[in-house]
């Protein structure tokens, strides 16, 4: 099976449950989704809907109980630690809610860390483009503790982009930011998709954040229940409000 042209990552009938027997909790119940290349996709849903689990499974951070996950041409499901590590290093970028920068490294060193770990050369031209886009040119020699939250998250974004991964996964990237810094980061993610063709998948529960995306997928109780294309924040909010009314198909 080869990946369809134009699909950066996809899940095929993915099931994920935790625990066993009576205590088993099903987080994902047969999710199938294709994430198109060069698009900014948001995954939304209430707490416990399985949106974070879906992202973790897509990114190879967590294994699936059943089904298959693909990133580009690579079948993620079944990869051993080494394969997963290389996948994460070469094909995936991450942005976390907690920024997760290394305090011992400067902003620049943090940004180029994935390349350094993989022993790769930094593409200077691309590095400059990324730096200028996130506006960190004059902050490169600073340590994370000397940066504001918004700046730290922009460093994290630059780190995710600098190795030109197939997909960037962002987990509540604005969760720890004030609205202005959050808007900057979201604007930057949007531009990355539009101008550089970077595939971005973002998990969020903030309708406003989701409104920056090209496509919004709604999850509930482990199922994909709705989907919107380039919605406004209001549309997203409305949809969220009425998610309770959507019947969840029983497996």
């Amino acid at each position, binding site marked *: 099976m080869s990946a369809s042209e134009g699909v950066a990552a996809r899940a095929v009938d993915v099931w994920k449950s935790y625990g066993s027997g009576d205590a088993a909790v099903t987080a994902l119940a047969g999710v199938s989704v294709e994430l198109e290349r060069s698009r900014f996709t948001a995954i939304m849903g209430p707490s416990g809907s399985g949106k974070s689990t879906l992202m973790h499974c897509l990114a190879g951070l967590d294994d699936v109980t059943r089904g298959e996950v693909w990133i580009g041409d690579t079948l993620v499901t079944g990869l051993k630690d080494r394969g997963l590590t290389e996948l994460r290093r070469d094909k995936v970028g*991450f942005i*976390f809610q907690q920024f997760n920068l*290394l305090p*011992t490294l400067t902003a620049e060193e943090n940004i180029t860390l994935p390349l350094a*770990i993989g022993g790769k050369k930094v593409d200077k031209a691309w590095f400059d483009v990324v730096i200028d886009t996130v506006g960190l040119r004059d902050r490169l020699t600073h340590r994370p503790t000397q940066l504001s939250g918004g700046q730290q998250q922009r460093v994290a974004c630059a780190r995710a982009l600098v190795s030109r991964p197939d997909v960037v996964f962002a987990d509540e990237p604005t969760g720890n930011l004030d609205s202005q810094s959050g808007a900057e980061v979201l604007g930057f993610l949007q531009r990355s998709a539009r101008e550089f063709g970077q595939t971005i998948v973002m998990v969020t529960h903030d309708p406003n954040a989701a409104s920056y995306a090209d496509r919004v997928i709604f999850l509930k109780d482990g199922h994909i229940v709705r989907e919107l294309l380039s919605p406004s924040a209001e549309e997203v909010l409305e949809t969220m409000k009425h998610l309770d009314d959507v019947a969840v198909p029983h497996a």
Partner: protein
Amino acid sequence: MLKATLKSLLSRKLRLVLSALAVVLGVMFVSGSFVLTDTLQRSFTDLFSSAFANVDVSVSPKKEKGKQPEPLTPADISEVKAVPGVASAVGEVEGSARPIGKNGKVITTSGSPRFGFNWTGGGQEKIREGRAPQAEDEVVVGGYLASTGGFRVGDDIALLTLEPKKTFKITGVYEYAGGRDSLGGELSVAFTEPVAQQLLLGKKDVYSSITVTAANGQSDEALRDSVAAALGSGYEVKTGETLAKEQADQINEGLKFFNYVLLGFAGIALFVGIFIILNTFSIIVAQRTRELALLRSMGASRGQVIGSVVLEALVIGLIASVVGLGAGIGVGALLATIFSSVGGTSLQLAGIGVPMSAVISSFAVGMVVTVVAAVMPALRASRIAPVAAMREAATPDRPLTKITIIGALVAAAGGTALGFGFNSASLPLVFGGILVAFVGVALLTPVLSKPMVSLIGRLLSWSMPGLLGRRNSARNPRRTAITAAALMVGISLITGVSVVLTSATKSIEKLAAGQLQTDLIISGEGQVEGSPATFKREVLAEVEKTDGVSSAFGWASDGVLQGDDQMFAVAVTDVPAMRTMFALKPKSGDIAPLRDDQVALPEDLAAEKGWSVGSTLTLQLAKGEPRTFTVRFIWAKTQVLQGALVLPESASSGFRSDRIGQAFAQVRPGVPVADVQKRVEPLFADNPEITVQDRSAFVKQTTSQFDTVLLMIQILLALAILIAVLGVINTLALSVIERTRELGLLRAIGMRRSQVMRMITVESVVISVFGAVLGLAVGLALGVATVQALKDQGISELGFPWVTMAQYLVVAAFVGVVAAILPAIRAARLNVLDAIAYE
């Protein structure tokens, strides 16, 4: 509050184990020392009470200080026999007798005596096989000597006594009550009485002591008193019980010293342990900042926070003490067993006991050490402002100015104490000064750690994981510093000792090259029951006559009493030969042969005593009345014959033994020394304890004892270093926990497990090498200071053990790699998702 503390403690079991381990090891060392020495002491007490089991009362000549007692005579025995209440009185002859094994080498023991005695048939020895000796050339041997040397009834055995090698026929083997081969690993042999007297005491019809048994109904004490009354003064009359106690006490005194040495090293180990615990608690408090601040914000007082940390320390200290005591009992018992069975001592062990001193010291040491180490972190914890709870615990680097100033002051104080200690030759002041200096240097390490760590790290960080490891080790200077300082203590002590020993070796070598103008040195190998082996004056005369020898001289040596002062004296056969071979220069008077009533001495001894040429001094030699000598000459200070009086050869008649203990020969120019050595050696064929060495062999033999000393110290300090390694593991493990999220992130963005492990390993090696470099530097300083202080004691040269030091550095790097293994595996196994979500 109590419940919260205990719950928090239990929830961090790993941390508990790691921080307790350092205390456990230290306490183990302490209690193990006590258990070992206690067991050995009781074993020796048992040994001597069985050795004197059949002695009711014993009579021996009275010992006067500095004088050799006159032996007892048959008349004394008759006199004792006539005392009412005496059932029997037997004359005992006892003296040194060293058996020569079938391989021609003298059989040695590890400390147990080798002796011969007269077979009286009345002792506690029972013939196991064969019969008692009857002819002059017959002996019976103890079961232990028979089994050690592979001797059987009918075999020949060669023995060294006061006389050179003599061969006897073994007519029997004896044993002790219960079929035991020996009482305590001693090698003994019994002769007929006249032979024993001649060979062991050097005279016919003399006895070492008289063993008296009491008639029925007579108490030992009453018998002792009546025998003493009958004999009058000039005799020592004691009950067997008293004798047993006295002899046991003498050995136990030595064991006590041994115990102090062990406790000293245990102290060093515990001192290192304090660093580790201090560090552990500092890290724990840092990690518990939120928890403690939360408690504060809910109204807990500062006192309660301090109490909570100290309580945690107390619990850890208590557990560690109990475990350490248990382990110490095991180790002590194990060592006692090894001691009693290995090395031919075959001491019958008394049951393993746990002395009160072991229990008390274990708990005192374990609890005090832990609590002391926890107080500082506890104080710091109490200063945490409640708001810190809510903030991300971003504790900025506290400035190091204060700690650096304090460290410099403490180090200076330690150095001063050390200096005073050297000047006043006060050992406590020296050791105290060293410990204080260590604390001072430890306080200075945080400042040093930044430049040093980046320097060491640069050598190791050629890849990204290496760079991260290096940065991590520079991240918390205090933590790295304390961890490294713990390693510093052990390494600096070893280095210091190495410097002193290397300097001593170099001094001896220089001395041999400069002042020892002698080609051959003839000396007794090892110690024979307290004094080196000796040979007859006639043999020295033969050496002088040997083809190729231009001159030779020797001396008999003994302690002599001048007033109440014990002094070392040598009776030299040929003063001019000595002058040439030792390159002696006169300070006053001229170096010429001494008349029978003349004495010579070195410059510093003369100055100390206020003697000059023409002074008269009265010396009490071991035999005879005090003699008066006039100072003939005083020689300029040299390294040989330090503090010795040189007496004329005739004075040796007053020594315990007039035999030659050491001799020196010069070879005619142009004659190969090795050839002459080959011609001299056969003169000592009957005396295998005497060796003939050329100068370099002699120097090697003299300096080789330093290697043994160094090895012993290395073994004893190994525990301190082991504890320091635990400290490195501890620091790394706690750092791994602290940086869980970072590790998760690194794994998430594609760092391989092997790279994670490399990162941790680099951090570990950087810390270890930093500790080793510090240790080498401090050790060098300590060593140089000690050598300076010992300048007058014969260590004139300064030598540096570069090779040894390089080895320590390599070992430290290796230790770093080993210490990283467990933390690195733990870090590599972290679940990426859990790690990122970790708070």
